[in-house]
């Protein structure tokens, strides 16, 4: 009589999915400029995570943040319910990037860059015959992803859901202000100094013209044109010996 409860206990266990502790995350090493763009993001490959499931096919599930609680692991990949082309409406989560464990050898060789670029296949984004297309994401998100291992059509293991991933949003060029941050110190220096010099010159010119005709302002260094002094001196005595030219 204890057999029945035991059998009943075992039956659900036979169909339970293993919950792996791994949480998918955006690649942190190496630092990638294109880690998050407007329609793609880059995840670390799940190395050394699915070691016990050598026969399974590992799928990536990409879901809208709000669709995470309602995602059903038994939804098959490549069906209209999980087709990329119908994402994000009405399909709230799609499955893509299927691969066998052989593509994720463990341990990861040093120096290799092991990443998955979600959204890199733009050629099949509108092709309904490719429902598992890894197409560019249609909006900024937020999205959450997890890996799911299927044997045949039976899910056997899953990782945790990632933290929400937000993509970049491009601003309009109108937000760039080209008004300039004011004038540089050089320009202000040039303008100020030249204005002062010019003002001094104008003032000196005015003073100069004001005193035109009057004798030089009392300075003892006034001088006469050297030649005319000589001519004057000679004129008083030898008028006819001088050339007619007057200076």
């Amino acid at each position: 009589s204890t057999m029945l409860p035991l059998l009943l206990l075992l039956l659900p266990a036979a169909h339970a999915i293993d919950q792996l502790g791994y949480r998918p995350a955006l690649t942190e090493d190496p630092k990638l400029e294109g880690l998050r763009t407007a329609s793609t993001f880059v995840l670390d490959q799940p190395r050394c995570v699915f070691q016990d499931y050598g026969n399974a096919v590992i799928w990536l599930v990409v879901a809208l943040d709000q669709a995470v609680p309602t995602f059903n692991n038994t939804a098959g990949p490549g069906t209209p319910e999980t087709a990329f082309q119908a994402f994000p409406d009405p399909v709230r989560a799609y499955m893509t990037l299927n691969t066998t464990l052989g593509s994720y050898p463990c341990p990861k060789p040093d120096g290799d860059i092991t990443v998955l670029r979600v959204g890199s296949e733009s050629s099949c984004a509108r092709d309904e015959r490719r429902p598992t297309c890894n197409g560019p994401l249609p909006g900024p998100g937020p999205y959450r992803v997890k890996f799911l291992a299927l044997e045949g059509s039976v899910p056997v293991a899953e990782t945790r859901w990632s933290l929400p991933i937000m993509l970049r949003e491009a601003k309009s060029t109108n937000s760039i202000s080209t008004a300039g941050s004011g004038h540089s110190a050089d320009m202000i220096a040039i303008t100020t100094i030249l204005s002062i010099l010019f003002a001094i010159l104008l003032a000196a010119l005015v003073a100069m013209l004001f005193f035109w005709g009057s004798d030089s302002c009392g300075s003892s260094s006034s001088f006469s044109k050297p030649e005319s002094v000589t001519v004057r001196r000679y004129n008083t005595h030898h008028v006819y010996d001088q050339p007619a030219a007057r200076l």
Partner: protein
Amino acid sequence: MAKSDDCIHILQGLLVFGNVIIGMCGIALTAECIYFVSNPPGLYPLLKATENSDISAAAWIGIFVGLALFALSILGIIGVIKASRTLLTVYIILMLITFAFEMASCITAATHRDSLTPELFLKQMLERYQKSEPANNSDSGVTKTWDELMLQNHCCGVQGPSDWQEYTSAFRLTHSDADYPWPRACCVLDAQGLPVNLDGCKLGVPGYYNSNGCYDVISGPVNTYAWGVAWFGFAILCWTFCVLLGTMFYWSGIDY
């Protein structure tokens, strides 16, 4: 009398020397501005596209000011030696007019240089680079200039490849974000002009794409161009100021 004669001769000598320097500087200014006008820096399409031609206007003014300075310096030398009040009056007034023009040219060049901010080039690049229907020659000139700039200097964008991600652009309208996070010219290219590793470039793996911006490369020649006109003119004007003050002092000492 002899002493003030010596003073007079020293003053005359100084003024002649000052005018000789002004004459030579005038020739140099003309030559420099002719060089700038006829041989604009390779980035001239970018400057032209900013629709603000003040720097080249400053260079044109510089040519004529230089010639005027040379002519007036000769007039000044004659006036000083002959100690003629008329000649010197004409000289002083014409020099003041030339001073004013050169002052305008310097200030214009400096102000325009200030307006060439990174934001200006960024907006121009985003709006015109690879525009699918170039409205006029200046759009295709901008595209060609940017391509050459990025290829020759191994740089990308104004501040970096993220310029293409942070803002919408004419480039983005014709090139999808997934295939072209940034233009191919930002990738490290091999001898045939193809990206060494296209996936590495799209991911932004260091070593397969150019991560630094081109603004430093742009601002170098532009600075030379603007400051060559502005600061050299400023130096000439400072020297001219001294010579003019000396000439006015000399003028006031001439007996009539």
